[in-house]
């Protein structure tokens, strides 16, 4: 049964990836002549013809798409105009930076959200809970790019503790991680709070209380263990959200990741690189989502996907 679900979900992911490739391929054709899009503004007519022949644009669309797909599957995502290098190589070089930032942001988000969420549930309807709720709401409504700049203003310019932007030391990592982590902390906090509220109302908690166990033990061992599944689920789901927010955060902090390279490629009209970045990030997202779904299944055997 599980393997049936696995195969179904895998097929679905592969189909979605195929669809992604069609869209990315189609995007370049949206504007009319892709050669104009890919060529630098100062290109001559001879240059254009050369690029056109090189890219095989004189062939029928289906043939072009097939070539694009086969190349992509072999790891060839075209080459960047600006850097005059293989797009896949450029992206793979930057990807660890994005992963590092995403990892630290997630760590910060969880470290902030768990204690606050748990304490809000324990002290339900007190000022702490209400302030926590309000901050979570504000966190979800705040534009990431703006929060990043405000952090730079306060903690890099007014009180110069951290560097304003760039990459290199551990200090460079702090402000971008906080910016990106705060964004996911809000959702994790809300779910932690409600999962803990559910768990704290359960019968086994009453039993534990009647046995005279300490409140700490009840909250952290008995209730938290049972509330852990929704909390883990939302955390896993936030992995995709974090990668999504990375595009903006990397731009604000000049963090040399895949998101920054994609935005820069848009500015320098380096279309093959934009295309490659979108394709790459898209595939990463789809894989993350697939893994999250499989994780559910491992965490909670009660979930039956076949019924959906």
């Amino acid at each position, binding site marked *: 049964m599980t393997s049936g679900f696995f195969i179904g979900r895998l097929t*679905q992911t592969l*189909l*979605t990836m195929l*669809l*992604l490739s069609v*869209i*990315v391929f189609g*995007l*370049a054709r*949206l*504007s009319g002549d892709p050669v104009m*899009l890919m060529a630098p503004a100062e290109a001559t007519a001879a240059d254009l013809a050369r690029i056109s022949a090189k890219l095989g644009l004189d062939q029928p669309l289906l043939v072009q798409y097939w070539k694009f797909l086969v190349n992509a599957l072999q790891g060839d995502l075209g080459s960047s105009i600006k850097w005059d290098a293989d797009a896949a190589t450029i992206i793979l070089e930057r990807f660890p930076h994005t992963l590092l930032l995403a990892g630290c942001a997630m760590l910060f988000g969880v470290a902030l959200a768990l204690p606050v969420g748990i304490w809000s549930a324990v002290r*339900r*309807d007190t000022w702490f809970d209400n302030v926590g709720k309000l901050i979570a*709401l*504000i966190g*979800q*409504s*705040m*534009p*990431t*790019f*703006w*929060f990043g*700049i*405000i952090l*730079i*203003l306060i903690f890099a*310019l007014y009180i110069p503790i951290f560097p304003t932007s760039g990459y290199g030391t551990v200090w460079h990592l702090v402000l971008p991680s906080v910016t990106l982590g705060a964004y996911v902390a809000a959702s994790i906090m809300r779910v932690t*709070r*409600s999962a803990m*509220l559910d768990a704290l109302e359960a019968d086994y908690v009453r039993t534990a209380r009647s046995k005279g166990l300490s409140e700490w033990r009840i909250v952290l061992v008995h209730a938290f263990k049972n509330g852990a599944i929704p909390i883990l689920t939302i955390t896993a789901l936030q992995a*995709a959200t974090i*990668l*999504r927010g990375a*595009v*903006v955060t990397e*731009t604000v902090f000049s963090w040399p990741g895949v*998101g920054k390279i*994609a*935005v820069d*490629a*848009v*500015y320098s*009209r380096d*279309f093959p690189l*934009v*295309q490659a*970045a*979108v394709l790459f*990030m*898209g595939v990463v*997202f*789809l894989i993350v*989502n697939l893994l999250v779904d499989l994780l559910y299944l491992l965490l909670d055997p009660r979930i039956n996907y076949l019924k959906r």
Partner: protein
Amino acid sequence: MSMSNVTLARKRLPGAGIPWRWLVPAVLLAIIVLSALLADILAPHDPNKQNLANFLSPPSAEHWMGTDALGRDVMSRMMYGARISLLVGVSSVGLALLIGVVLGITSAMVGGWIGEAIMRLTDLLLTLPPVLIALAVAATVGPSLPNVIMVIALLYWAQFARMVRGEALSIRERDYVQAAYAIGCGNTRLLWKHILPNLVNTVIVLATLQIAGAILLESTLSFLGVGVPPPTPTWGTMVADGRPYVELGWWMVTFPGLGIMVAVLSINLLGDVLRDKLDPKFVRRS
């Protein structure tokens, strides 16, 4: 026990009967909407009038929110910027709603490979980073107001389609719909009389929350320079313009960002209230 204590304590507070939960966000939103609509009358200055003598002057009686690097009045630009945010938010979500409801219904009623294809497309749109897709599209078709609205609509219809399909499938299985079908009610009548009316509440709630998301996305795109192009004032562009001068003039960045936050927050809060009122299936915790 502790619950009743809290309720009692609340009752004694002055103003406890006032519905703060929707009143506060409604008032905030009303201020934003009014200042957008009446910007021509209310704005103290011309939003695009440059005056280099006023380079980054701090908030004062003349310029309540200060001026930007070109000497333009930040508050007037905020008011005109609200227009763009609201216009993009409402029209892109309206368009998304239309596409989403039609495709969602199609997917549920027609089914087969067409239904499946629509659902795979929603999978794709819901997983991909919207900013990245919007960047790629903007790089292709060029940034402009209609393009921003189109891109957001094309990214946002998926949630409507998902939800409408799910609801339609479950409504279709209900006894009264089955009964209507059994006595010879055709598909079209079934759709208009039994399925669509049942979807209205959920769609309204989702649309409200989506508008907040669309405003946030528009500001992000404008910030990245692929949204509504200058000189049109938008909150996102204003933050981007202020960024190089942030150390010299905090007001240039702070106020537009606060504008985005307050707009998104109040729409989200109103959406929550609407959800409690219209969507009884969704039980809010505490």
